[in-house]
């Protein structure tokens, strides 16, 4: 059962991710990105990370995607005109990509033992209670630094997007 759910949602995630990159119109890419975020939330649930799954749906599929769609509508960005690519890219791209994938697969299989199975329910310490306890005890200082970072980002976004007034 695990493997079926994992395969279904992994394939949806990869297909939607390819669609994000392939689509010429930004709105189509944004809708595909929502698909990626939703299926990744299910993947996190399979790994026992309930809080991350909820945060993924609320923050990514909710907040960030609304921001993206809002900016796309605001800028009225149309479809992108395709231009010819350099012949060198056509020639070298696929073999280099295949070589990189091969090296990546080799390193990952060397570094991590293959016998470990990630079955559903094997790790149940991903609830909001456990994550919150870790955040407010061990990681209190990084947590506060992250909140300062968010504050700086808010001020920066407001200053950047503000209309210049003389």
């Amino acid at each position, binding site marked *: 059962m695990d493997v079926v759910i994992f395969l279904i949602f992994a394939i949806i*995630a990869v297909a939607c991710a390819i669609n994000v*990159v392939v689509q010429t119109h930004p709105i189509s890419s944004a809708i595909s990105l929502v698909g990626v975020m939703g299926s990744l939330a299910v993947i*996190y649930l399979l*790994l026992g990370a309930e809080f991350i799954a909820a945060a993924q749906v609320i923050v990514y599929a909710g*907040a960030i995607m609304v*921001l993206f769609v809002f900016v796309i509508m605001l800028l009225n960005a149309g479809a992108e005109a395709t231009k010819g690519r350099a012949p060198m890219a056509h020639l070298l791209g696929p073999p280099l990509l295949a070589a990189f994938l091969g090296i990546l697969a080799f390193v990952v299989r060397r570094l991590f033992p*293959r016998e470990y199975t990630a079955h559903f329910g094997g*790790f149940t310490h991903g609830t909001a209670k*456990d*994550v919150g306890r870790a955040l407010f005890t061990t990681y209190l200082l990084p947590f506060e630094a992250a909140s300062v970072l968010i504050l700086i980002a808010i001020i920066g976004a407001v200053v950047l997007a503000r209309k210049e007034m003389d």
Partner: protein
Amino acid sequence: MYPVTTIHYLALSAALLLIGTVGVLTRRNIVIILMSIELILNAVNINLVAFSHALSNINGQVFAIFVITDAVAEAAVGLGILIALFRNKETVQADEIDLLKW
């Protein structure tokens, strides 16, 4: 039945990382480049949560929270820059913004 191992999650993560990198390198629309960066950050999150599950340790999930925080800050500032850029240059195509090109 064939079991799901951590390798499978790492493979999914590597696939999303590669697709995001291809998007950043080949697309010209800055909005889509920012979306590809979100894909790359999600690939990092899958790795962190998968290792958290493999090692039965909550720390990976805490780091995933911090990555989500950074992604939100990056998207907000990036789109703010994009709006300021569009106000000055009337374009969202990365190859038409060549003010610093000699």
